[in-house]
């Protein structure tokens, strides 16, 4: 008799999803699926809106990474306007995007995943959360909260709001940086360095305890994609896309936003509202690939900043070629936080950052435009078509979580096959299967939330619908 295990909802994620694990009559895992259970509809309800409203509308997709949506959307609008934005505006946007990356990575690592990493996958779920981390490792808790605050405060200083800032507009940003704000951010930098150094040291101390998880947490060969600079250093805001295979060979390079649809296709599956992106040259599902911190660090040759470059060298020693285990997303996230702090400091010490020319003005000069940027969890692609009046007639968004969708499903199956034995599961097994998804830090729908307490129920159901076993958290 076959059985189904359902984890619904998956906890400590941005948004709401569920996992089902199908067992065969021998109690072995046959299939596993990660379901995104919400429909959003942004592509449809933006139709008819003026193109210049798009950045603000698209930012509402997500409460964690609105800045990346702002930037990808503004770049698509700038393609419609046929303009290049002032250099200072580009640097200010870069700083804003890095600040967002820092706060989002801090949320993912410290709030969502450090309870598993520092307290243990099998620790009591009643205390396996940030409060538990604070009680057991207060210095790590303080560092995590302070790093998130650091990123959020920069966003608030520049964009006037921590969430959904409206500062980024088609053509640049709405106003230049004031010297007092620059000085305030620079004054916060030393503490941020101390906090990320502490976090990296703490992570390296405990990483070896997770050899089994490293082995089976979405640990397989795949392709990778991310933005990269011409000098092969990491890039979040401009640049072009590079795709590498599982051995590290470059299979596509220099992909600008308008060429993205030539290389990337989107498939749908009946069990999820999130699309499944794939490389057209390899087809679906063979052309699946990963994006986000692991992909970025696998692709780049350097971070372009001294401290992060040392960490990157160490990271690349984890494997002979691309680092394949998705458990290492956690490590990559910390290295990117360090890079973000260094880069923000570098940007702010350039006198041109206070330049007053931060916005270019134009109307509709093309009827189609596309833009791309790196969100904390991976590449974002926005593609719009407009009529002569600049009203949106068609929009398509390819988001990071859709690009990692195949890998997450494959990873859940790999972990379930390893941990679920004879049709039995424990709370610790349940948590590990969820933790595979957490490693990717997917953003399912940050702007929708359940009201009140979120229950977690894992149910074993027989083929005829009978509940065989249930664990309720």
């Amino acid at each position: 008799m076959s059985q189904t295990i359902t984890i619904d909802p998956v906890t400590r994620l941005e948004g709401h999803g569920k996992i089902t694990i199908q067992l065969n009559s021998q109690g072995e895992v046959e299939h596993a699926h990660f379901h995104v259970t919400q429909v959003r509809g942004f592509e449809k309800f933006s139709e008819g809106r003026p193109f210049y409203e798009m950045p603000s509308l698209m930012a509402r997709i997500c409460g964690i990474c609105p800045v990346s949506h702002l930037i990808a959307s503004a770049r698509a609008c700038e393609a419609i306007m046929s303009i290049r934005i002032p250099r200072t505006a580009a640097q200010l946007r870069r700083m804003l995007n890095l600040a967002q990356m820092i706060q989002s990575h801090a949320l993912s690592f410290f709030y969502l995943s450090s309870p598993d990493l520092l307290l243990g996958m099998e620790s009591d779920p009643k205390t396996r959360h940030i409060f538990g981390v604070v009680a057991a490792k207060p210095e790590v808790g303080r560092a995590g909260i302070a790093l998130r605050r650091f990123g959020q405060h920069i966003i608030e200083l520049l964009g006037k709001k921590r969430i959904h800032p409206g500062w980024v507009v088609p053509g640049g940003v709405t106003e230049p940086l004031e010297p007092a704000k620059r000085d305030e951010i620079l004054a916060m930098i030393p503490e941020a360095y101390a906090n990320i150094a502490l976090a990296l040291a703490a992570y390296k101390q405990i990483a070896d305890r997770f050899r089994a998880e490293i082995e089976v947490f979405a640990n397989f060969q795949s392709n990778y994609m991310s933005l990269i600079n011409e000098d092969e250093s990491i890039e979040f805001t401009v640049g072009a896309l590079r795709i590498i295979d599982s051995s590290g060979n470059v299979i596509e390079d220099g992909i600008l936003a308008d060429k993205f649809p030539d290389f990337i296709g989107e498939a749908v599956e009946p069990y999820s509202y999130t699309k499944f992106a794939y490389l057209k040259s390899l087809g679906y599902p063979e052309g699946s690939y990963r994006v986000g911190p692991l992909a970025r660090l696998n692709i780049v040759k350097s971070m372009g900043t001294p401290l992060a470059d040392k960490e990157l060298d160490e990271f690349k020693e984890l494997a002979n070629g691309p680092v394949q285990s998705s458990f290492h997303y956690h490590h990559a996230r910390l290295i990117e936080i360090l890079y973000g702090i260094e880069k923000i400091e570098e940007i702010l010490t350039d006198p041109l950052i206070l330049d007053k020319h931060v916005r270019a003005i134009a109307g509709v000069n093309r009827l189609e435009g596309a833009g791309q940027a790196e969100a904390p969890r991976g590449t974002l692609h926005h593609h719009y078509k407009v009529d002569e009046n600049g009203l949106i007639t068609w929009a398509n968004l390819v988001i990071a979580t859709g690009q990692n969708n195949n890998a997450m499903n494959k990873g859940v199956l790999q972990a379930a096959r390893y941990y679920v034995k004879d049709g039995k599961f424990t709370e610790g097994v349940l948590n590990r299967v969820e933790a595979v998804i957490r490693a990717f830090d997917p953003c399912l729908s940050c702007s929708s939330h359940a009201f009140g307490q979120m229950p977690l129920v894992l149910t074993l159901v027989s083929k005829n619908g009978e509940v065989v076993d249930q664990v309720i958290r």
Partner: protein
Amino acid sequence: MTEPKVRCLILACGNTLRSDDGIGPWLAQWAQERFGDDPNIRVISRQQWTPDLAEDIAQAESVLFIDCSIESAPGSLRVIDVEPSAPMQGLATHHQGAPELLALSCDLYNTQPRKASLLTIGAGSTELGETFSEPVLDAIPEACRLLEETILNSLRDGDHCK
């Protein structure tokens, strides 16, 4: 943690697009205008209370949380003392309650305010909208009086402690 302590921190919470849920931010704005020049008073208004506020709490002698309540009768006002309390269930990463924030402040920074209170206003509606329900509109004058009284009391209590 090098900044001097403020005498009274006002921490409001609510969504201004969800009718009466916006009463917390509205009262925070009122307090900002009423006490904005007083360096002893700091006002923070957020859509949600998040863990980073623990540091602000640690830097305050007293804290007054302001929120709407869906459990109280519409328009009813309450001021209650708040004690630190760690969450018994899994933590919501986006939002904490006042007792959890106090506990977090204590765990992280080994300090907590001398006094912590919560002012709640019973919500009549939390549907989409930018206006308050009749009961909440009627309660606003008394809510402002109670808010002012609570703030002034906390400042006076601080003087007695010196």
